């Protein structure tokens, strides 16, 4: 009798409720994450009259007018173009300087290497607020204020260290024997790096590029400080619209949804590397 109860308890404790409780916890957590995003999407598909006068969980008059506003008004869509331009520039610059440096850190000891590696990290940890004013003055004095390249260079502050650290993590995983064999086979350093080494760490380059893109895309403070008209990013356009007396909630929500799209598009491909990227390649 006692045995039967124990067995029943064991069965109940191990199989059914445990699986369910896990699923419930995950479902609740995902619901918590997705609800605010759903609300933004919901609002972007409503008319302003419906947003302000009725409280509806799903849009009653489904409208794409808010998206149409953004995609046809240059004041809006140029924000996306500007953001994409400086983000791409930044990714290219960061990766092209970080690749050789990461190789050096992963393969050689040289004078001051540890200090240099740490110093790079401190730049990732520097609060952008500290750099906002000096950047403004530096780029004004060299005549780069309100250009895409200024924002791209400013974002190198945190993206170059990030790229170096992530790439170094991936390069350490490539056995050194490969380098040596290639040199014996008569490859020059450049030839080896481009033809043999780069394909081997292509996933690392992809991950590093993704994170450079992402961190430059999500940043607001520096990009807003360094631009006024010609290179104004979408993020700054959004915050300034909020200051106006009548806020166009529908368009604001639609603009927000459109900024999520680039991340959402590639998220599936980097899903196993997200923790690694955020932790600077150390996981």
């Amino acid at each position, binding site marked *: 009798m006692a045995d039967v109860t124990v067995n029943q308890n064991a069965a109940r404790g191990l199989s059914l409720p445990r699986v369910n409780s896990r699923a419930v916890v995950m479902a609740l957590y995902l619901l918590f994450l997705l609800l605010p995003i759903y609300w933004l999407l919901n609002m972007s598909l409503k008319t302003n009259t419906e947003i*302000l006068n009725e409280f509806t969980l799903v849009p009653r008059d489904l409208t794409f007018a808010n998206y149409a506003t953004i995609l046809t008004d240059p004041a809006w869509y140029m924000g996306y173009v500007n953001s994409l331009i400086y983000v791409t520039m930044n990714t290219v610059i960061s990766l092209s*300087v970080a690749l050789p440096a990461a190789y050096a850190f992963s393969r050689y000891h040289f004078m001051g290497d540890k200090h240099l590696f740490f110093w790079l990290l401190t730049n990732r940890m520097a609060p*952008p607020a500290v750099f906002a*004013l000096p950047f403004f003055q530096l780029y004004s004095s060299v005549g780069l204020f309100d250009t895409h390249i200024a924002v791209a260079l400013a974002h190198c502050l945190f993206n170059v260290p990030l790229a170096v650290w992530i790439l170094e993590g991936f390069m350490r995983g490539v056995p050194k024997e490969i380098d040596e064999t290639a040199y014996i086979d008569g490859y020059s350093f450049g030839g080896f790096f481009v033809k043999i080494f780069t394909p081997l760490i292509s996933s690392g380059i992809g991950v590093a590029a993704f994170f450079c893109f992402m961190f430059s895309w999500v*940043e607001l403070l520096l990009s807003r400080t360094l631009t006024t008209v010609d290179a104004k990013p979408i993020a700054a356009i959004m915050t300034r619209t909020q200051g106006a007396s009548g806020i166009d909630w529908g368009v604001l929500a639609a603009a927000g949804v459109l900024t999520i799209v680039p991340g959402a598009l590639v998220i599936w491909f980097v899903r196993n590397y997200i923790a690694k990227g955020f932790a600077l390649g150390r996981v």
Partner: protein
Amino acid sequence: MEKTVNHRAWFLVLPVLLLVAFSAVIPLMTVVNYSFQDTFGNNEFFWAGLEWFQQMLNSERMWNALGRQLMFSGIILAIEIPLGIFVALNMPKSGFWSSFCLVLMSLPLLIPWNVVGTIWQIFGRIDIGLLGYTLDMIGIDYNYTQNALAAWVTIIVMDVWHWTSLVALLAFAGLKSIPDAFYQAAKIDQASRWKVFRYIELPKMMGVLMIAILLRFMDSFMIYTEPFVVTGGGPGNTTTLLSIDLVKMALGQFDLGPAAAFSLMYFLVILLISWVFYTVMTNLDKREG
């Protein structure tokens, strides 16, 4: 991996060095310069010594901002770390559902920070936001633009929403590295769920958890955009964190001297923490390698 000594490797590092020197060292020197000088306009500067530092150290404004900042970082760490571990323990270990959870959980991490602010600004409004409207219907007095407590709750829930997944993903990476044999041994010993967590999972996760704690501490310590968009530092000054205060001082009021002194002290605190971060990480690397 055995590394060889090769000083010519410096040439490979040189581009990074030049670029970062341009985008970090020159601006930082400007800040140092301002922090020791005073001006009456017309670009004429004279030596002010440690005056600004003394002024900032005696300024109630900075200490208040620092206090709020520490409280904010403390609260979000106290919520995000345990919650992140809890979520990681409940995640499916492999297969489609694991990827499914990974993708959905990563979504908030990839949203631009000002949009995170906008999402919560809308979500919390009593007239048009789901959260604010619901709370108002139940009869809870919630208005984050007027009520300091509501503003604090909003920015904390927002940060938990934004970053808990990062802690969970890191903890999950730590959990996945535990070999099955450990769990089998625990089963043979009839260890309770709590004991499995306490003596197997927690020690194995310690490395990634240290990284998670330090990352979250540092990033929350320099948070600017999200609370700025939601509350703008208000109501009053109740949610004015360090970065918001600094930007107000430097770009709003153009008080160069005090702002520069403030920046340097702010940066020194971060440097100190980065050093701890680095030491912990290199020790962990050594233990693993």
